[in-house]
């Protein structure tokens, strides 16, 4: 079992940045009537989301969040010994965007930097990696960046995906302190379902070609090209309502923590229908489960940290036990229980 436990490592601070441009799902998607859009919005709960312009990449959102975090927290950049950039919308196929960010952020050359290609589970998996790097005496601080411009991935003409995704970036500073106590992670992969959420072309298995850019009408009137994201919504739903409750129960058991001892449950913001189903199934109290998807949509791996910044900034004073869970593309699933002790949380910046 990929389960991990750590002592005295934790989240010192968290900042988020989003594009200025707001996209309103009810009125801005001209490919659908307002009635159709209304039925989808009612189910997904996503009223609006942020859309990056052509010139803005996920790395730019993470850059803005990182600058805010390090400047306002007064962090000595020489102490950042590793930078992890989690994204499936990087600047280039090579080199790794994390290495470009090491330079842009003025981090020392002695800093390890690399990318992780994961989506919705990416904050939990990235955080686990940051915690594990900090087991070394010589590693002092790790910067975990999660950035996505998912609106550039999916077709706005596809009713299953055209209303869900938003763009955002976060920066999370992880360091060592006895105040953090113990934390626990349980991580799973299910490659048998790798085609549930995917972009077919543009890699080396199926390189881009003139045909792959052509939008086609598919089953149920969905319109997208092979260069755009495909999602089997029903398959993902089945996976999530079966596996996520199991993962949460296993993590609680592994940690020896009772559900009632958890102050907040921060889930990947998939859509309201699925997330509310999870809440009912797990019998969670509504005020312990923050939602940010009505404002920012599904931002993939950014959704857990942006929900913390957006919804818990006034609630996370003092010491809190927080359970986080991310699930999706891969398929990949990760749950963690953390002690969060008076973190620095920035005000969300717009660029």
């Amino acid at each position: 079992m990929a389960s991990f436990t750590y002592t005295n490592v934790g989240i010192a601070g968290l900042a988020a940045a989003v594009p200025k441009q707001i996209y309103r799902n009810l009125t801005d998607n001209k490919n659908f009537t307002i009635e159709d859009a209304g039925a989808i919005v009612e189910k997904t709960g996503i009223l609006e989301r942020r859309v990056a312009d052509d010139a803005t990449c996920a790395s730019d959102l993470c850059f803005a969040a990182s600058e805010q975090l390090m400047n306002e927290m007064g962090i000595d950049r020489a102490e950042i010994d590793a930078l992890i950039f989690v994204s499936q919308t990087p600047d280039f196929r090579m080199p790794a965007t994390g290495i470009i960010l090491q330079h842009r952020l003025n981090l020392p050359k002695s800093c390890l930097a690399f990318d992780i290609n994961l989506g919705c589970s990416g904050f939990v998996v990235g955080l686990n990696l940051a915690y594990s790097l900090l087991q070394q005496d010589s590693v002092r601080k790790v910067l975990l960046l999660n950035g996505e411009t998912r609106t550039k991935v999916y077709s706005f003409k596809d009713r299953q995906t055209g209303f869900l995704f938003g763009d955002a970036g976060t920066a999370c500073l992880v360091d060592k302190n006895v105040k953090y106590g113990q934390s626990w992670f349980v991580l799973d992969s299910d490659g048998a379902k790798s085609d549930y959420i995917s972009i077919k072309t543009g890699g080396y298995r199926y390189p881009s070609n003139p045909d792959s850019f052509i939008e086609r009408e598919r089953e149920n009137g969905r319109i997208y090209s092979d260069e755009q994201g495909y999602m089997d919504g029903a398959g993902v739903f089945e996976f999530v309502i079966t596996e996520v409750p199991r993962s949460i129960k296993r993590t609680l058991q592994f940690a020896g923590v009772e559900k009632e001892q958890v102050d907040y449950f921060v889930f990947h913001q998939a859509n309201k229908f699925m997330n509310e189903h999870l809440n009912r199934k797990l019998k969670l109290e509504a005020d312990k489960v923050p939602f940010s998807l009505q404002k920012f949509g599904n931002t993939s791996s950014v959704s857990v940290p942006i929900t913390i910044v957006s919804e818990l900034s006034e609630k996370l004073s003092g010491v809190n036990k927080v359970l986080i869970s991310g699930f999706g593309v891969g398929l990949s699933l990760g749950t963690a229980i953390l002690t969060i002790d008076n973190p620095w949380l920035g005000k969300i910046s717009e660029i």
Partner: protein
Amino acid sequence: MEQFTELLEMEQPVKLNDIFREYENWDSLAYLSVISFVDEEYGIVIPREEFGKMKTVKDIIDYIAANS
């Protein structure tokens, strides 16, 4: 049956031998509603391959009976 009628927002009551895929408002969202309802009420997640074989409302009810 009444619950299915409400769930699918049907104007006429749902009947046992109705082919549910022929309902005018049957779509992917209705599918999610049914899967979610059965999971919450009976603790059963109907696998997609199984659901694909079902034709009538009775098929769904029989599956729940056989698996609960």
